[in-house]
């Protein structure tokens, strides 16, 4: 049993190692965002999925989809970040993420690539006065060559902090 | 690998025994929850050793022991009993039980008991 356990642990460590520092990047308008690859379970094209609207939800929750028998809620990240909505096209994707056991689909303009960003290339987000709403969801900023990737804070994305934001604006 | 049949009305005891025995290289060929089923299972799977609880519904372990020994005089039956059942164990031994285990048993005790019994058999 001990042997198995340590072998399993090693494997997990390896997985962690291979996944560490890797990010899936996607675009929302002009900006490029990154999400830690360990959260991502699947990417589907939005056109393939019909999204069922569920009443009484915030606007950014588009509804639920049936992914091979699993019912998964989908969030329009544009709307979540209070950006102007944009019609879905054949490049619009749903990134399925699993954050601490909760599966959620993130609707993004388009998925770009998987990138490695070293820790030393990460900087904390600047505390600007002109704090735009969506910066609250940014955990760090990664620099790759001369481009900037905004790394998402997944926990924030799911927690319902609308109330907090209302307090801030009010 | 030695085949063991576990006869006990308590599912917990069966699981305990099975876990301990399988961990120590025995093959649990069958389980039964009372004496009658124990006999039937004995005939079905012809085990090398039977562990037989004494207090069971339908048919007690001692009765089942007698029946099994009648069917197969070479049957190797080990009684499983609690403290305070000395007289029943005696009855069982006189009626051909190979040995006995006292509940609550420890893994090393039961394994030693069954392994020694196997040696003596050979």
């Amino acid at each position, binding site marked *: 049993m001990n042997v198995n356990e340590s072998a399993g642990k090693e494997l997990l460590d390896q997985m962690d190692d291979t996944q560490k520092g890797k990010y899936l990047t996607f675009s929302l308008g002009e900006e490029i965002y990154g999400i830690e690859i360990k959260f991502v379970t699947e990417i589907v094209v939005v056109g393939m999925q019909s999204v*069922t*609207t*569920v*009443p*009484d*939800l915030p606007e950014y*929750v588009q509804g*639920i*989809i*049936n992914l091979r*028998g699993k*019912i998964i*809620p989908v969030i329009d990240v544009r709307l979540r970040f209070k950006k102007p909505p944009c019609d879905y096209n054949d490049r619009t994707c749903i990134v399925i993420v699993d954050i601490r056991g909760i*599966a959620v689909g993130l609707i993004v303009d388009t998925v770009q690539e998987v990138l490695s960003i070293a820790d030393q290339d990460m900087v904390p987000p600047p505390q600007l006065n002109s704090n735009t709403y969506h910066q609250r969801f940014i955990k760090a900023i990664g620099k790759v060559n001369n481009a900037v990737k905004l790394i998402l804070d997944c926990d924030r994305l799911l927690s*319902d902090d609308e109330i907090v934001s209302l307090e801030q604006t009010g | 690998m030695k085949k063991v049949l576990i006869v006990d*009305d*308590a*599912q*917990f*005891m069966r*699981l*305990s025994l099975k*876990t301990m025995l399988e*961990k120590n290289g025995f093959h649990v060929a069958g389980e039964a929850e009372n004496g009658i*089923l124990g*006999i*039937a299972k004995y005939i079905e799977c012809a085990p090398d050793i039977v562990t037989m609880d004494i*207090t069971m*519904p339908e*048919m007690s372990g001692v*009765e089942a022991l*007698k*029946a099994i*020994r*009648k069917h197969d*005089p070479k049957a190797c039956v080990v009684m499983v009993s*609690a*403290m*305070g059942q*000395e*007289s*029943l*164990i*005696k*009855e069982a*031994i*006189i*009626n*051909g039980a190979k*040995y*006995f285990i*006292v*509940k*609550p*048993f*420890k893994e090393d005790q039961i394994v*030693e*008991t069954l392994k*020694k019994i196997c*040696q003596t058999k050979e």
Partner: protein
Amino acid sequence: MAGDHTLEPMLDMFLFETDQLLEQLEQIIIHSEQSDTYSATDINEIFRIMHTIKGAAAMMLYDNIAALSHAIEDVFFYLRDTNPENMDCTKLSDLILSSIDFIKTELKKIREGDRVDGDAAALNSSIKNYLEILKQSNPAPLENSGTGVISVTNQQYYIAQDKKAASTQNKCFKAAVFFDAGCEMENIRAYTVIHELKDFAEDIHYIPENIMEDDSTCEMIRQNGFVVRFSSDRPLAELHDFFGKTILMKEFQLEETDPPASGEKKARPQQIVLEDPVVKIPPSPEEGLPAKNSEIHSSNQQSMISVNVAKLDRLMDLVGELVISEALVVQNPDLRGLTLDNFNKAARQQEKIISELQDMVMSVRMLPLTTTFHKMQRIIRDMCKKLGKDVQLELIGETTEVDKNIIEHISDPLMHLIRNAIDHGIETAEEREAAGKTASGKITLEAKNSGSDVIILITDDGRGLNKGKILDRARQKGLLHKPENELTDKEIYNFIFAPGFSTQDKVTEFSGRGVGMDVVTKNVNSVGGLVLIDSVAGEGTTISLKIPLTLSIIDGMTIRVGNVRYTVPITTIRESFKPQAKEIINDPDRNEMIMVRGQCYPILRIHRLFKVTTSVTDFTDGIIIMVENEDEVLCLFADELLGQQQVVVKALPPYIKNIRQAEGLAGCTLLGDGSISLILDIGGMMRRGYSL
């Protein structure tokens, strides 16, 4: 065993089995108490149950449970053995029920990972005292050696002729055997040594003597070892080998000795050689394979296995998915317009099998209400004792089966209702007699099937509900939502299920805390059930719970509003129809209503409630579905009906549930084409309809 990884399944099993045994035990006790006597079967059964619990608890090192069950086992051992005439059944029942409670508390601690630290010393000594008193008041008529196997003690000892009859060559030996500390029953272990030794030895003497008759010899063996003298023709090395194989032995010594004096050889009281045991068994009716056994073949033995509920839930899910994927295949758009005779034949066969599979999986999850009902007996017993009331419980239809998940949801409501009935419903004996009733009250708990529902009725013959008092209280709590004179009796009675409602002025131990009755409705509603109440002053109250047989699969009518599909549970639908313009009524407050056969019903536009875009906004373009819930009727307006089908209920994803605070949806389901349909919660929609 502690800290062992293999412990967990064993712990689960221990908890599961002990729970079951306690349940069984409680039933036996309560039944015995009613007849004020313990039958021989019951005594045997109780003995066996306590014996099993003791054994398992000792294995798991729960010494307090083991000790307590041992004490009870002793009492029943005595009862079984002596069948005493003078015994206090009630006292014994009390003791055992208290013990059951103690063990249950300990089990709960185990489950919750708390320290199992309950102290049963007081209970233990009460039980021991009880046994003492029992023994004193029932002196044994004859000296009795317990269950002693008298055949052993009466047996004659003699020396069998050595099979080899070569005693002249025999040498004499002396062996001392020491067993492992704590191996227990050393005397019997010693006996087995002798038993084996007799195959090749004779003139066997041993110390202590009387090992088979006297269990106190254990202690002597522990102290001084088991000393055997014998003669044998075998070489020392072989004998050494023989003793070396002794089970659970710490050490032994073996040496060759001088032959004993001839005179000693003649004295043979302790010499023992046993005959071949097989020969010795006297033939008896119970002997051998009993008649019953001949019917048993390995293939048709009825055996039960216990399965983890999570696995059953998963199985149910999978079958649900299979049903959906079957529809996906059979109704696949690619097949449209093709003539597929063989395919259709095969598909029909498959459909049949899948539907059978579905039924089977459902039936596996069904459990009888027996256990739940029987639990109520205990509650009634305890409450009656405390409140000094006398209440008989009648159970009807306790074997009615319901889905396991539902049973879990109705156990608490039933308990509340029963407590309430005894506490508030049933009067004291004096009051009852004054009212011309029997002194003892009666509660009937009845379950029956009714279509896809199970109805559970809790009826008491108590004082009935006091309308005036309920109204006062409702007024006080501001619960009245319409003029008092317009309230029907049922509406008044229903106030008792409102949160925080309690007519009882003082808080009692069992009920009347103001919480409870609203928990009943909440729990029952959560499984899609209804609570109905009826009462006649002075004669009693009947509360009925209408509960679906299963949660997982419902018959539903799928409807469309805009591009969203909804499923309405068939059980709630009264009718559906295309409305005529002339039937629609608009009141001055712009409430929309429809007149059907002279009755006026409110209309709820689903597209408006759920803010769905649709082109169908004119009533005559769409369809009206008249639904009912708890005697209330509502007309839903939708675009069109899509058809009726069985659907597998799935919960909405947790993320949605967390942020969605509104009522009106019971879950969702997957339709044949893979699209999602939202299942409507009619009760919730009605409540929202009021506030619109």
